[in-house]
């Protein structure tokens, strides 16, 4: 509670410092969008197409790239030599196909780049780079619940498997190191699951982070000679992850009692943790770290207040990062350096890019070379897509919130329809990165608003827990409404043309919006939406399913950890009272529902009941995807959901809709039930 209050004081105190700057940025963005030429109407499928090459990863020795090539019939896994690039007189280095059909197979470089570990659902394979040969080395024992776990680059000769067996009425988690010949040995046995480990070169366990106790705290342990010593304890919702070690020093990205995840270093002599770096803007959790090539100190840290921002430890590091950021302005960068630190693989993402772009960055010469430029060439030009506009506003209770707006170009924004897209979770976030669905809507002339309402993660513990169970008429819903009000007040969005959409919790938030603001919205498209959040949480607790990790905290521990009073019957009663279901008979807004018939998180029967009990005059349209679980997977099914949103928006805002293909039409005919006033054509 103390943190909560302190943080609020800080937030209230700091907002004015950048508020005017922020308003100016909004105004500039609005002006730029309105004066830009109106882009042509792109087809829906243009947004949904994937790049022909993806999954690019550089070997830690900096010599090879692994990547997937989509041939249209299958997804092939390839490796390509880097050194024979253009500077060596060849367009591309030698390429070898590793797996012809790699769907369902992951690929991890060993820490020395000598091999690729290739786990799939049945077992583990390995591809040897020197001999260019691959083989399967291990088949999982289903009865022991064996599965691939991870690769630690510190121990290049091994990968890690995990198995889970009952012993004496409790689970025993066993972690096995497996070498390239398929020989296994146990490196750790625990009663609760581990989350991460740091190994030494021969594969012995040095540090581990895992769950501990009934409250499922995350604990970092130092391990030696089969004994472990606790170094840090992070109760939910805090996280802590050891990221590197050298001698007796270990670095971790952790809350460690603070509001934000920062870089922490453990001093073995003083037995104290020291905060080395945190977000200079004081907004965001740390998201990534680069270590120096010698591993003796950190090199750079990344945070994501709006987009990913990097900070070097030294001037030299700052210079290299600044050079890189200057070449890729406004992009969020994911950096994977080679072991010697001389070459970085850079994945750059921007909302206005149809596909992420991949580069090799030479640190010494500060030169950047784009990879697979042809295969990942955007068919939709950046100038005709929407950039991300960070938005910060204050909710009813004064809490400062963060989100993003995406503005259509060449239209007067004051009269443009506005759609709020809420993220799922709720303990997740929108990150402002590329999103084909957002771009599709913006292309149709609508403003898209993606609020990171309270309960979103990435902005610290206080932000994530601030909802305190207010998932009904107030709290999260206030944040969404005030965010929309803020944008409209700033000339972005027509107050008469507002809509809400979202998946999972985002769908629930959409239903809440049309339930408690019945005259405000033109329509809602909630997909996989709980109709009573307390009921869905209880259903997940009883039925299991994929919403919760079988090895993580049970819902009874998890939700209270995030400030949700799950154990309080009064909360369940309030959620029921304020639920969309309880108000279904008074629905006055056209609603277009999507449900996965095999959804094991949001039960299809809850949506069926909502549809059945809704006001008959406004009975929601309902698309039940018979093969889908919580989300659609196959291309046609994804497009069906995209069409549902695009079509609904067209019906109410008239921005246009790409007619469905014959296959999609057939799919919709089978699975879509038209609603009362929610027209479906």
């Amino acid at each position, binding site marked *: 509670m103390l943190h909560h209050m302190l943080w609020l004081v800080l937030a209230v105190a700091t907002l004015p410092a950048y508020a005017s700057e922020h308003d100016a940025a909004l105004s500039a963005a609005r002006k730029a969008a309105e004066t830009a030429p109106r882009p042509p109407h792109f087809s829906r499928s243009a947004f949904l197409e994937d790049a022909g090459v993806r999954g690019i990863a550089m070997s830690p020795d900096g010599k090879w790239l692994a990547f997937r090539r989509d041939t249209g019939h299958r997804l092939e896994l390839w490796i390509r030599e880097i050194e024979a690039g253009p500077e060596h007189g060849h367009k591309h280095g030698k390429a070898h196909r590793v797996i012809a059909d790699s769907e369902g197979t992951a690929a991890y470089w060993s820490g020395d780049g000598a091999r690729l570990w290739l786990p799939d659902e049945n077992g583990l394979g390995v591809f040897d780079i020197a001999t260019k040969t691959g083989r399967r080395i291990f088949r999982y*024992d289903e*009865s*022991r619940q064996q599965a691939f776990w991870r690769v630690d680059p510190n121990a290049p000769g091994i990968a890690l498997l995990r198995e889970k*067996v*009952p*012993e004496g*009425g*409790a*689970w*025993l988690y066993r972690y096995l190191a497996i070498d390239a010949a398929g020989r296994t040995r146990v490196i750790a046995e625990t009663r609760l699951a581990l989350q991460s480990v740091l190994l030494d070169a021969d594969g012995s366990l040095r540090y581990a982070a895992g769950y501990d106790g009934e409250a499922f705290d995350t604990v970092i342990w130092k391990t030696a000679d089969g004994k472990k010593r606790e170094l840090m304890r992070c109760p939910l919702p805090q996280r802590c992850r050891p990221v590197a070690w050298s001698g007796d020093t270990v670095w971790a990205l952790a809350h460690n009692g603070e509001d934000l995840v920062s870089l922490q270093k453990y001093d073995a002599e003083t037995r104290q943790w020291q905060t080395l770096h945190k977000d200079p803007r004081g907004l965001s959790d740390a998201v990534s770290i680069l270590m120096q090539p010698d591993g003796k100190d950190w090199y750079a840290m990344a945070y994501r207040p709006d987009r990913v921002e990097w900070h070097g430890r030294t001037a030299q590091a700052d210079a290299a990062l600044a050079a890189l950021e200057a070449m890729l302005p406004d992009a969020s960068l994911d950096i994977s350096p080679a072991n010697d630190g001389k070459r970085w693989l850079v994945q750059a993402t921007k909302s206005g890019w149809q596909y992420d772009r991949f580069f090799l960055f030479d640190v010494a010469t500060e030169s950047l070379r784009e990879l697979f430029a042809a295969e990942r060439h955007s068919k939709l030009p950046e100038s005709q897509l929407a950039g991300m506009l960070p938005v910060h506003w204050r909710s009813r209770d004064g809490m400062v919130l963060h989100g993003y707006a995406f503005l259509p170009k060449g239209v007067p924004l004051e009269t443009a329809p506005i759609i709020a897209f809420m993220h799922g979770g709720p303990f997740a976030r929108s990150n402002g990165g590329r999103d084909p669905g957002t771009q599709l809507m913006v292309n149709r002339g609508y403003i898209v608003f993606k609020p990171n309402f309270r309960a979103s993660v990435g902005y610290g513990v206080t932000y994530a827990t601030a909802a305190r169970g207010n998932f009904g008429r107030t709290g999260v819903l206030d944040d969404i409404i005030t965010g929309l009000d803020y944008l409209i007040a700033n000339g972005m969005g027509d107050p008469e043309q507002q809509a809400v959409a979202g998946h999972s919790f985002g769908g629930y938030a959409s239903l809440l919006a049309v339930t408690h603001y019945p005259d405000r919205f033109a329509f809602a498209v909630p997909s996989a939406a709980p*109709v009573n959040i307390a*009921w869905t949480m209880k259903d997940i607790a*009883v*039925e*299991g*399913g994929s919403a919760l990790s*079988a090895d993580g905290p*049970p819902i009874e521990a998890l939700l209270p950890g995030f400030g949700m009073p799950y154990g309080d019957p009064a909360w369940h009663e309030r959620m029921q009272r304020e639920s969309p*279901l309880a108000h279904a008979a008074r629905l006055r807004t056209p609603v277009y529902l999507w449900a996965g*018939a095999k959804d*094991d998180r949001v*039960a*299809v*029967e*809850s*949506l*069926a*009941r909502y*549809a*059945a*009990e809704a006001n008959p005059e406004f009975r929601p349209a*309902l698309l*039940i995807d018979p093969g889908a679980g919580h989300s659609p997977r196959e291309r046609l099914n994804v497009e069906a959901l995209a069409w549902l949103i695009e079509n609904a928006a067209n019906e109410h805002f008239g921005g246009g809709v790409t007619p469905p293909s014959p296959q999609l039409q057939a799919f919709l005919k089978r699975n879509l*039930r038209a609603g009362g006033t929610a027209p479906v054509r």
Partner: protein
Amino acid sequence: MKDLFFSELRRFRWLALVAFTANFLLLLFLHRVSNLLQQSWLDALPMLFIYLAAGLALAIAQVGSYRKPSQWAWLIHRPLSPARIFAALALSSLALLAFVIFLPMLLLLLGTDFLTARVVDLRHYLLIVHVLAFALMAWMAGAHACVSRSRMAIVVFFAPQLLALHLVSTIELLLPVLLALGWLTYITGRSFRANREAPIRGTATLLVTALPLQLGLFLLSVVLWRFLFVSGSILLGVDPLNTDYPPEGGLIATERAEPSEGIALGLASSEDSRAASWRAQLPLLEPLRIAPALQRFPVRQQFSNLYLPTGWYDEERNVSWTFSHDRMLFIGRNPESGVAKGVFGLGGAGDVMPFDAVPIVTENNDLLTPHALYGIDEEAQTIELRLELHDNEQFTAMPQREFGRLLLLTNQRLIALREDQRAAATIKPLVSDWELALPEGPQHLDFASLAELMDGWLVSFVYGDGIRQIGFSQFNVVTPPWQQVLFVDADGKAAVVAERRINDDRPAMYRTDWWLSPPLDIFTTLPEAVLDKGLTWPMQLSLLPRVPVLYIAGALMLILSTGTACWWLRGTRVTPARRRVWLVSCALLGLPALLSLLLLEPRE
């Protein structure tokens, strides 16, 4: 007699040798392809038919060759009593059939028993004795038909089938098989007489000869009636199974409806305030249908396996586990090396504690006995009791995994259980979710349908119109089709929310054969009720149906049969005493008795 015996053997020696060799090689071939000893009855049936045909063919070849009056006179006028002539022929055929059918099977069985690790039980030895007995019965029926006035006499063969061909314990089957064989032997022996056209002498012989004929004729009448009824209905365009749409509100429409529609049909007249909401939700849901399709469990030392798996293969250890009825536990064998791999009893691998009933293996590798569900822990090589039913309760369906639950149907309850996923155990403990008592027990329950709602479950029970198929036979009674829908709330409390009477699609006279001959209808059902066939819900003898039309039809049938018999007997020289026997028979048994009279009593 000895001479006749040996001369008959000599007559068929080469044919027998060829048949023996062919049979032995065929059996060996099939045994190489699959384990003949663990075949299901459906797979084994063609072989039994071949052996029966062989018995029949031998009778026709052997006794049929004496059928011409001159040859009959030559055979019967030997210096031997007809009984001894019959005995010589019967014994020679027994010897021939034993050589051709029994001996190859015995050799194969002994070879398997003593040279391999495959499971050979007492039931397999008794099975080949039974097969020989059935082949001999076929010979008797054939011989009887050859020497009777009418070749229709062959229908006597149906009677022993009815009495003795049952999937019950081979030990229990000894008595009916011996009775049936003795019966056929007696009547066939008595039909060996100089004047084959003369009326059968002696009332007892007549009755004993007539009864199997009547049973056979009853079964023929049933087939004929059903054929005529269905063909006629189709011609008139009123057969409910052969129209574009089944009759509205009827059982067939309910059975053919999607599960969601089926429940909605039940809810149509519900007065529950939630019914409208449920009806609107049902098309959006995917309810499950669970039917008592598990008609029977295997019984110990069963004649042949049911069409259900009774073993499993442990891929990791390369052990094939087959259930032994002698030891009542699983016997392991490495199929690659053929080496014995020990036993798997109730206590797991290596344990000799026997099961109390023959288990079947479910698709999820659980073991199911009539009263208990066990899980196999392949890792620990143990068996865990997962669920035990109440006394007198048994499963009537294989467990189904749907809605994240294990759904079990028994002869008393529909049970929904959840597996405790967080429990640290390979075999997850089952946690009770809810259960419902069957509204009218297991008799003629057609199916149950379940729909999962947000706040509970809708469960519909549909009871059928009394048609019950077991194997190839129907044992029908007339019951009124009926549906009940219950709502089970989230706490497992159930309340009836709708009931409806479902229309009969077919008239009572089609659904039951009782009116054709009440005593014979009961007689044909008797073995199903008396023998332990492992039925999951018992066969009940329906002595007096509650449908008036059946009484009228039955009475008419008896009167007509008796009247026709009267008229027929007027043209015969049947003695008054025998005449009375026939009339009483017709008055009791109806049409089959009349038909047997027409066949057995020559008319001037």
